[in-house]
């Protein structure tokens, strides 16, 4: 995924800022809208947000880095969230993360080299009776074991491979 250039960021931001009054207390919703637009928080965009909300850049970054929702680099095409809630933990979710780390050759929290997958651990998806489970984008896959989890990833990367060949 290529990073957008500054002029393009500015243009897309104007569309977002139009929906807000420009007050400091709107910071979190503004950051959420920026992330929705870009998929992450580009540094330039945070600077523009600071100017727009009339607050220091340090405050913007301070708030953005506090909350786990915000990311500072582009995510992969698919985000794989491995649930590590209590029910999933006792059902050995750790082995699923481990298996996917080896399968994708990345560590938890990283994005694969081909830009297809970002692997994340999340606290609880709240579908405890399906434990252990992973969420790929908005789809939940439950009652997994490490092998089944790896198979889901393989299936997804195959569909992308086919698309590229066409």
């Amino acid at each position, binding site marked *: 995924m290529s990073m957008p250039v500054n002029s393009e960021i500015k243009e897309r931001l104007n569309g977002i800022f139009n929906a807000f009054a420009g007050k400091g207390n709107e910071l979190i919703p503004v950051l*959420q809208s920026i992330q929705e637009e870009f998929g992450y928080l580009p540094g330039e965009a945070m600077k523009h947000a600071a100017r727009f909300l009339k607050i220091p850049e340090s405050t913007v970054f301070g708030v953005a880095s*506090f909350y786990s929702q915000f990311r500072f680099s582009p995510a992969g095409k698919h985000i794989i969230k491995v649930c590590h809630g209590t029910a999933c*933990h006792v059902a050995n979710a750790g082995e699923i993360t481990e298996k996917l780390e080896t399968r994708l050759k990345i560590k938890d929290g990283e994005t694969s080299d081909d830009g297809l997958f970002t692997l994340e651990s999340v606290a*609880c998806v709240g*579908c*405890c009776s399906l434990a252990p489970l992973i969420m790929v984008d908005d789809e939940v896959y*439950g009652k997994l074991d490490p092998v089944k989890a790896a198979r889901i990833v393989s299936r997804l990367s195959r569909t992308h491979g086919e698309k590229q060949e066409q």
Partner: protein
Amino acid sequence: MNKPRISVGLGSCGMAAGANAVYRRLETILMEGKAEFELKRTSCLGMCYNEPLVAVLDERGEFLYGKIHEESAGKLIEEHILKGNTLKGHLVSGKDVFFGSQVKIALRNCGVIDPESIDEYIDTGGYEATRRIIREKISGAELTGIITRSGLRGRGGGGFSTGKKWEFARNINSDEKYLICNADEGDPGAFMDRSLLEGDPHAVIEGIIIAGLAIGANKGYVYVRAEYPLAVRRLKKAIKQAEEKGFLGKGVFQSRKDFKVEVFLGAGAFVCGEETALIHSIEGARGMPRHRPPFPAQSGLWGRPTVVNNVETLANVAWIIRNGADKYAAYGTENSKGTKVFALAGKVRRGGLVEVPMGVTINEIVFGIGGGIPEGREFKAVQLGGPSGGCLPASLAGTPIDFDSLRKTGAIMGSGGMIVMDETSCMVNIAKYFLEFTREESCGACTPCRLGTKHMLDILEDITEGRARKEDLDTLTDLAEGIKRTSLCGLGQTAPNPVITTLEYFRREYWEHISEKKCRAKQCRKLISYFIDPDKCAGCRVCYKKCPENAISGDKDKVHVISQDDCTRCGICIRACPRKYSAINCLPGQA
């Protein structure tokens, strides 16, 4: 009776199990004109272990079918609707057992009505309480009085009297007051708030309006996790519907009172469940807690009196106003009135969302409703209250569930997560798991929590990896007591609870880890070993090929051996060994 009515449970967990596909399939059947019925969407009935759920109501009665998938949906129509039979193998016979001892007040409409229809909520008597309050001009003092008399206590974990909280805020003069609904459900293993918002958003909104009227607020917020997209969507839709009916906005129910409700999306910080941190978050800052007093009821959002109530607390409010404080207080124990919703999960046969009167025992929930432990394993412990709570051993499962009895055991009611564990769960590992969570989520504002949780986690890692000394248990206890006593907010004050309770009830297990270097549940990798049974090994080479560390040696048709120095205890070999041989054993203890 008209056409049979078929409702599909479309909550997050039902959808995860494939309920959307079932709904679409039924829609297709309906469009093709193959059968006549009315198709309806509801939300979660709480019977997670049987998802996706489909209920059929016709002149023969009400039938609940579980584990209905796309293919069986067609069969269901054929058998039940067209042939007039029932679909065998899917009919939920455990219905009485699972629902038998439950009393549904907060969850009264969940899985019953269409959560996206305000009219269905009104048909069940919804918004009647609010209408009466406006019509009969019931004062804020009377409302807080009713709630105080009902004995309702905060369901988010704190357990403070809801009526008293309202009373504090009501008694302060201010031109602006706020009511915040705390839906920042962050406890791993708890999903009652999500289910409520998905299944009956209007009950929560009505609770917010009544609480707002009681304290004299003119604006309400719902602080909800962004990770709950379906709950957010249904909540926003419900607010819009309520505005259109004139229940929210300018002049609610044709009165002169204005009340607006806004949704604020939390950005993912567990500490924001603490009310002062939550308020900072709405103000656009880092969600860090502050010293109390002043309490939010005196000085909260933008420095104005603010009441923060949990979703489940608010879902009870309209019911209490409609049915009276006494009827609510008739359920429960002396100091814990009413019902409590629990998210039952883990090593239990029938997991799901259950609502029981306060005072029932843990055993009644785990065995009566949950059906006990699967695969003939032994009930070992139950974890209550998530990272702030504790692990109670099976021997204490006769403890009645109420705020005070649970506090005496060292666990807490918490928000209602209830995770059942069997002998395959290591209690030291569970304590470590929760400390990992609180260490990660500690906001860093105060030293005991920021450094203390890290220090405790270090010791727990040493224990689970076989490096600990026996003095470490004393240090762990000292740290736990110190952090509990001196932390700024509830997160730190309760973070040691999982360690304190496991140390108290499962000390032997800690001891085995330290002195015998052995994990009896076989969860701590450094304290287990894998062996190949020479009598069973056929030399098939499957494990040899699968081992990522090349730790297995042996020629074809000869007995294989695992090198204990090279083995990382990943367990791949034990899963790879063909079932007919089952030659690999995992044993507690270092080789």
